[in-house]
């Protein structure tokens, strides 16, 4: 079992990192979105290795399902062409250097963390999470639903096509 756990972790970690790199490297936005699905599914697998089963299901449903469909719809709506390749300028070299520095500082921070014994009081099943949400965290739960409602209204207001007369009002 021990070996199996290790293998599952390393496979998921490698898939996550590799497809994350593909998201950044691909010049076709649709291919980037597809690689992003790979990362999301691999992170869902990592959640499974952590025994967070409910969150793993939510990750697949919300991220790999809903969010990716939204991304793909927008990509197809905007009808994007492939990005042309251009030589890296100063800003991009600086950005690359900055993220390499970020990578090493984050990893050194991670390696300095002490691994505490994994003695979780409760598991990550749906029943136990529901228990937490409907006792201690009822208010944040309701706030999340309100947030989603506000976001929905906001999306409709921002993305709707304006009538010509409204356009003039906006400019005045």
């Amino acid at each position, binding site marked *: 079992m021990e070996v199996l756990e290790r293998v599952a972790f390393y496979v998921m970690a490698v898939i996550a990192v590799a497809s*994350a790199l593909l*998201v950044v490297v691909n010049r076709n936005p649709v291919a*980037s979105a597809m690689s992003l699905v790979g990362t999301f599914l691999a992170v869902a697998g990592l959640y499974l290795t952590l025994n967070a089963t409910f969150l793993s299901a939510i990750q697949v449903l919300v991220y790999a399902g809903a969010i990716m469909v939204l991304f793909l719809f927008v990509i197809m709506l905007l009808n*994007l062409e492939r990005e042309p390749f251009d030589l890296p300028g100063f800003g991009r070299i600086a950005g690359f250097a900055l993220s390499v520095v970020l990578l090493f500082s984050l990893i050194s921070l991670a390696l300095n963390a002490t691994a505490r014994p994994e003695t979780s009081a409760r598991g990550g099943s749906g029943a136990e999470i529901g228990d937490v949400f409907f006792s201690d965290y009822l208010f944040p739960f309701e706030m999340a639903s309100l947030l989603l409602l506000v976001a*929905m209204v906001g*999306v409709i207001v921002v993305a709707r096509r304006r009538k010509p007369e409204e356009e003039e009002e906006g400019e005045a």
Partner: protein
Amino acid sequence: MITVVDYYVVASILFAIGALGFLLRKNVLVMFMSVELMLNSANLVLVASAKSFDLARGSAFALVSVAVAAAEVGVGLAIIIALFRLKATVDAEEITNLRG
């Protein structure tokens, strides 16, 4: 033995790749995808560290953050659509309306 440190390392790498994509890419949509990558890695750290305390509570935190991410993606993509209608481009370097 896989410890929480291994998860931290994976999440660090994912976060750095997300930052790389955000800084290097010029397509606003791909920049937005990179932000999603960073959000995901933060969630991974949250759940991995919750395993030493209370996984149900940590999962609840992560679940709220997933809801916030979903709302954020909706609003962000709506802004990108509105921007595309205005400028007919998603190249971040050509969107300079706010530059004085």
